[in-house]
């Protein structure tokens, strides 16, 4: 290459002697090539940074609004003539009244509230006014009444979800122009909502329900939350941690410290490296065949997801653990063996504690990878509409659940544009978790890593 110094060409004899002060042609060339390389590096870094900034602004711009939600504060009269015709307060009879029976009560309450506040109702019919409230609201009311049947006949204050379009209006997603074309809302509804906000009946505030409530159907994006997905992801990570860490560490210790070096261990080693590069969907196919079809484990369950992700994470953990074990200097082992420790004592008392930070870092990075994985989950039925929270472990591992990445996928396929906001919000939550895990890994490495 050009920077190889060759005495013959580098310093031609005669008067053309090189000076340290004036750069000759060759030095200039070398400097220019270095500048070029730096520039290229800079361009590469800025492309990366630009892509990241673009991604983050798009996600944050779309998704941050999902952390706020619009509510309507209403005093609803729980009409006994509608909710308990028999007048016996018999819970079984009250349950017979479906959410369809609660809708008119809410409609009436909102119309009354508008009248009381002295707001112009924009000439909207009662039905159109009722449509400003989320279809989730009757369910909120019904659950309350079933939990407190003695409150029938009283007027109870409720904080009810506003409809998706009204919510979108306060977040800037829906405008007067788009509402004029939208069959699900109208500019009149938006003007009424604005007037109600000025009266303090409609309020937008932090959306805790986004983290706790389950998924919702296409007609009520405003009620959709990450509760089941968060729980499902947590259960899966627990399964992965409990299975992958001991199996991975045990396998690495054996391979690194005890196993003899022969063709069999070589073969295993090559296979482990290979497995780490296998596309994750392959593990999904394997999981479907082995855990659901053969072992008979239930569909959509976190246990199956956890097992599949365990298979996927194992190679990562084994490779990281072996690297950590290898980094412990042989002098430690020699010293321990020298004072009479057995091989096992050497490993567990001296080598493993010193390798622990590396092992934990590898495990956390493996877990983070598993947390963001969606492809294998597609095949084992986790991309489903699940509204029931899974129970407490261990039974809960077998209940249907969703997971964060598949919830994102699920929401991006929905027809209502409000789900775009929800999906971006879920991505932000997922990114926050990944960031947190990576920071923990970095802290662990910084705090406990030892250099020899």
């Amino acid at each position, binding site marked *: 290459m050009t920077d190889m110094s060759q005495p013959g060409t580098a310093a031609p004899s005669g008067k053309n002697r090189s000076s340290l002060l004036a750069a000759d042609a060759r030095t200039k060339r070398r400097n220019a090539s270095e500048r070029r390389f730096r520039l290229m590096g800079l361009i590469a870094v800025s492309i990366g940074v630009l892509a990241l900034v673009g991604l983050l602004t798009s996600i944050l711009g779309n998704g941050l609004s999902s952390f706020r939600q619009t509510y309507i504060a209403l005093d609803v009269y729980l009409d006994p003539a509608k909710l308990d015709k028999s007048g016996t307060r018999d819970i079984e009879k009250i349950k017979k009244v479906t959410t369809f029976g609660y809708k008119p009560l809410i409609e009436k309450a909102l119309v009354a509230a508008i009248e009381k506040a002295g707001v112009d109702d924009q000439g909207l019919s009662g039905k159109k006014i009722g449509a400003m409230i989320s279809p989730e609201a009757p369910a909120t009311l019904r659950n309350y009444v079933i939990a407190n049947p003695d409150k029938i006949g009283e007027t109870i204050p409720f904080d009810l979800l506003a409809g998706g379009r009204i919510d979108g209006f306060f977040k800037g997603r829906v405008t007067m122009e788009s509402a004029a074309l939208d069959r699900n809302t109208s500019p009149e509804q938006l003007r009424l909502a604005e007037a109600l906000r000025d009266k303090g009946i409609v309020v937008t505030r932090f959306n805790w329900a986004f983290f706790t409530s389950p998924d919702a*159907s296409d007609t009520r994006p405003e009620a959709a939350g990450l509760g089941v997905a968060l729980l499902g992801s947590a259960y899966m990570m627990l399964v992965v941690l409990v299975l992958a860490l001991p199996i991975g560490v045990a396998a690495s210790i054996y391979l690194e410290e005890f196993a003899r070096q022969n063709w069999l261990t070589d073969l295993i080693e090559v296979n482990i490296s290979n497995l780490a590069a296998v596309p994750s969907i392959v593990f999904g196919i394997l999981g479907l065949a082995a855990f*659901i079809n053969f072992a008979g484990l239930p569909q959509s369950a976190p246990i199956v997801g956890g097992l599949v992700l365990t298979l996927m994470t194992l190679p990562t953990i084994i490779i990281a653990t072996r690297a950590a074990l290898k980094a412990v200097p042989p002098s430690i082992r020699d010293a321990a063996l020298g004072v009479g420790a057995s091989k096992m004592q050497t490993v567990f008392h001296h080598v493993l504690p010193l390798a622990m930070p590396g092992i934990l870092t590898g495990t956390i990075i493996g877990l983070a990878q598993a947390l963001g994985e969606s492809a294998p989950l597609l095949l084992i039925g986790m991309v489903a509409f699940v509204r029931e929270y899974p129970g407490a472990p261990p039974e809960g591992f077998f209940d249907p659940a969703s997971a964060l990445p598949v919830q994102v996928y699920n929401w991006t396929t929905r027809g209502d544009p409000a789900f775009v906001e929800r999906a971006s919000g879920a991505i932000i939550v997922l990114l926050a978790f990944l960031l947190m895990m990576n920071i923990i890994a970095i802290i662990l490495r910084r705090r406990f890593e030892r250099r020899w």
Partner: protein
Amino acid sequence: MTFLKTAASALAIGAISASAATARDQIQIAGSSTVLPYAAIVAEAFGENFDFPTPVVEGGGSGAGRKKLCEGVGENTIDIANSSSRIKQSDIDNCASNGVTEIQEVRIGYDGIVFASDINGAEFAFTPADWYNALAKQVVVDGNLVDNPNKTWADVRADLPAQDIMAFIPGTKHGTREVFDVKVIEAGCEETGAFDIFKEANGGDKKAAGKSCNALRTDGVSVDIDGDYTETLARIDANKTAIGVFGLSFYQNNTDKLRVATMGGVVPTVDSIATGEYPVSRPLYFYIKNAHLDVIPGLQEYVEFFVSDDMAGPDGPLAEYGLVPDPELAKTQEAVANRTPMAPLN
């Protein structure tokens, strides 16, 4: 080491709980992604109003759903398959060979397929013949079949806007594509006379002629979308002159972004599809495994709730979301109450 002990005991707990897996108490549904939103709406309302857990609804496609339904009888198999096309004899045979003998067929309503472009674009009034002449590989010019020469919609028919032809149509794995092929392309093929020429060329074989009709041009003006309608919408957003194919419910949720085209002079609405005036529609179904009816709690109640007037009727939430109600809903309700298994396909 303590952590080894913890790990071992955790494994033991895992193994014990694996054997103690309890009986399934929630309904499991899979299948068509067109039916999925309707099924989710019903599942949600069912969970709210009954003492049974909310059913788990999965997408995956009509064919995959029916295949899963036919995997056998037992808690590890699904109870209901949603389908945007009718069950096939091969599915029924597959079911029978796996011991699934009694299946109920429930038609929940109709789905309209609409053609829409960007809200700020030109207005279109199509006929099936226009679509055939725009997208087919070979079209009739002066009584002869030639490779499609049309570049703009105005080339197809003079009173259409002079706008480059660009169409996003559903990929072949979608049930929507089948309807598009049969009700638009093949109908247009017959209308333009290409069908007769194809039939003659194939010695009177109607099937081969139909196949020739469905050969679309491959020069990039017709793009298959294998993803969801959200992808089609994003493509149209980027390419303002393109026309996309959507489900009616998706269009109804995005009327502020899309301008719908008429077909044969009819605007697609729930009403015009229900009366049959708007030609491009198809029935939606779900299939229930009768053997599960008394095993999985709430299954019978869910099925009856789905087809009840409250849900699937003309004023119910499904119709509001874009499902075209079935005029023969009462018949379906009766069949469901009697658990009538479906008759052999004719």
